[in-house]
């Protein structure tokens, strides 16, 4: 307190403001000019391309994507019907779907923009002392009227985030590894982490995240600066 009282008040304020900035990441602010110009309201989430060996990655990440985007204020086309539509039209893989020219998607689904997700990691890996359930995703949002890139980002969710606190010697590690294997498989843990990863990827408002959409009370406000 002695130190603070020695400093002039403007200096104290500047110090406090820099504290506020403590939550911010180092990443430079996203350029939202294309996004703000496009003002998308309806989003088509494309079937996510899966680069992991787990076949549940596409349905898991796809099913969890609607919630963060809808809560961000967008209308999200129902993914199960979109899946059905693709299948009925002979589009059998996410790669094939993501290669469809954007004007065709616009014509068929009437969406303003499409969300192209890639799953880089999905599932539980088992080691002797620990198991890690990890979901890594990235996404691009493309304007279906112009083809312009409106936004891109990536996110990770991992069970290791929580495990770091509960280490209790070698035995504790072994026990928790076994418990996690059981829990991990029985309850489809990756699906839950897909929910966390998708919320981090597509939730709003977030620094450098997707801008709030028309149905959000935050619509039209300037992007988060921290």
């Amino acid at each position, binding site marked *: 307190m002695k130190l603070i009282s020695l400093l002039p*008040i403007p200096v104290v304020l500047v110090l406090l403001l820099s504290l506020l900035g403590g939550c911010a990441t180092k990443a430079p602010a996203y350029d939202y000019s294309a996004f703000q110009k496009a003002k998308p309201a309806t989003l088509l989430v494309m079937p996510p391309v899966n680069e992991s060996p787990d076949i549940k990655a596409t349905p898991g990440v796809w099913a969890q994507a609607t919630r963060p985007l809808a809560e961000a*204020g967008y*209308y999200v086309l*129902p993914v199960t*019907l979109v899946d059905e539509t693709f299948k009925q039209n002979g589009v059998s893989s996410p790669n094939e779907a993501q290669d469809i020219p954007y004007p065709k998607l616009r014509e068929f689904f009437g969406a303003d923009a499409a969300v192209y997700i890639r799953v880089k990691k999905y599932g539980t890996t088992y080691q002797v002392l620990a198991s890690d359930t990890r979901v890594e995703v990235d996404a691009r949002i493309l304007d279906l009227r112009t083809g312009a890139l409106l936004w891109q980002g990536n996110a990770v969710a991992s069970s290791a985030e929580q495990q770091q606190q509960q280490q209790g010697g070698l035995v504790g590690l072994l026990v928790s590894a076994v418990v996690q294997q059981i829990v991990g498989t029985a309850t489809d843990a990756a699906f839950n982490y897909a929910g966390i990863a998708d919320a981090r990827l597509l939730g709003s408002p977030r620094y450098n995240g997707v801008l709030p959409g028309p149905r959000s009370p935050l619509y039209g406000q300037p992007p988060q600066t921290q």
Partner: protein
Amino acid sequence: MNPLLWARRVALGGGIAVLVGCAAKGPGPLYMWESFPKQQYEALQRDGYSPDDQIRLLEAHAEKARGAHAALPPGFRAHLGMLQLGAGNVDRARELWMAEKTAFPESAAYMDHLLKKLDAPAKTAKSENPA
């Protein structure tokens, strides 16, 4: 006013601002989700789920939302309509897809597409009928 006291107050206020800034507490959720993402997940996997059980579950979800005056998520009615169609309830499917359009006019283009297809198979069947 004592400058030390002032600094202390500013420091306290700043501390609270830091906490608030990190939490960034927004307004409540726009929709009642329940297990809807999980139902979609199961439907996307196609195998090992019962559409009939899911219809019952989602109808109960809709009932609960009505009781709580909460909004159903985008795509909820459309998804339920798809399940009803699968169960042979064409009229209920049509009703639900119309309801999706009413609740979310943004869905109109896609819903109209689906509604048009709903009546198309009958025509196709007729034309394919060897005369």
